[in-house]
């Protein structure tokens, strides 16, 4: 593995859940290049999967003509991932995080995505300009052996 310089990877795909597998493959390869083990790689795959699924379903309302952009920056001690959309945006602070037991009582099928991202990544930060450029930035610290 060669490090000591920042490496940037960018992926643009049509906004369709069909492309979540492609996005995960992209993230997985980069995670392995970062020296993460299989389970850690899977955790980052999930965080990005959740972020992109939200963009596809919520930001774009399943409009398949839109585009999801995933940027990954690999440095010596972090892997930084940005998910970008030009969709309707939202106020993440206004989203109520319900307990899983409550979601179950209410027979909800959703409401775990953002929690998953926060549990898995070291930083999760939204930056919204609805209709222009909404951005979700996630950082994972690399604990080098």
């Amino acid at each position, binding site marked *: 593995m060669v490090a000591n310089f920042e490496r940037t990877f960018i992926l643009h795909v049509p906004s369709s859940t069909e492309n979540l*597998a492609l996005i995960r493959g992209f993230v997985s390869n980069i995670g392995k290049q970062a020296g993460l083990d299989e389970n850690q790689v899977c955790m980052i795959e999930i965080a990005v*999967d959740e972020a992109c699924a939200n963009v596809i379903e919520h930001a774009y309302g399943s409009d398949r003509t839109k585009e999801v952009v995933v940027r990954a920056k690999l440095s010596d001690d972090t892997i930084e991932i940005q998910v970008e959309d030009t969709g309707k945006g939202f106020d993440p602070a206004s989203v109520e995080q319900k307990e899983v037991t409550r979601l179950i009582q209410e*027979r909800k099928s959703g409401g775990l995505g953002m929690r998953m991202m926060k549990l898995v990544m070291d930083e999760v930060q939204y930056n919204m300009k609805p209709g222009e450029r909404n951005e979700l930035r996630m950082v994972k610290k690399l604990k080098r052996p």
Partner: protein
Amino acid sequence: MPNSFSVSGSRQEGISVLALDGFLDAHTAPAFEEAIEKEVSAGHNRIVVDCARLAYISSAGLGVFMTFIEEVREAGGDIKICAVIPKVGQVFEILGFNSLFEIVGDIPQAVARFAHSRAEGG
């Protein structure tokens, strides 16, 4: 296919076993939901979900378990999860599913867990 996922169902001792294969995400969760829905509609409330060949799960997959668990439990049944690989297991664990669902080693163990519970409706 890159996003390949399939569910196959069988009946064992009055219990429905749904075997998941592949990648369970927002794209493929509807197929899993449909499969559980079919069991529940048929009055089959004792369900084992065999995850031996499940390579990946995201929250969309977990959502399917959440949607149905109350309904089958109210009907005297349950959804038991078995044979989870570590990569998938850590997802269940991180979201606290381990304390909300019974997760066991293999199909026979999952089936046995139903043995002592009350008979289901159908």
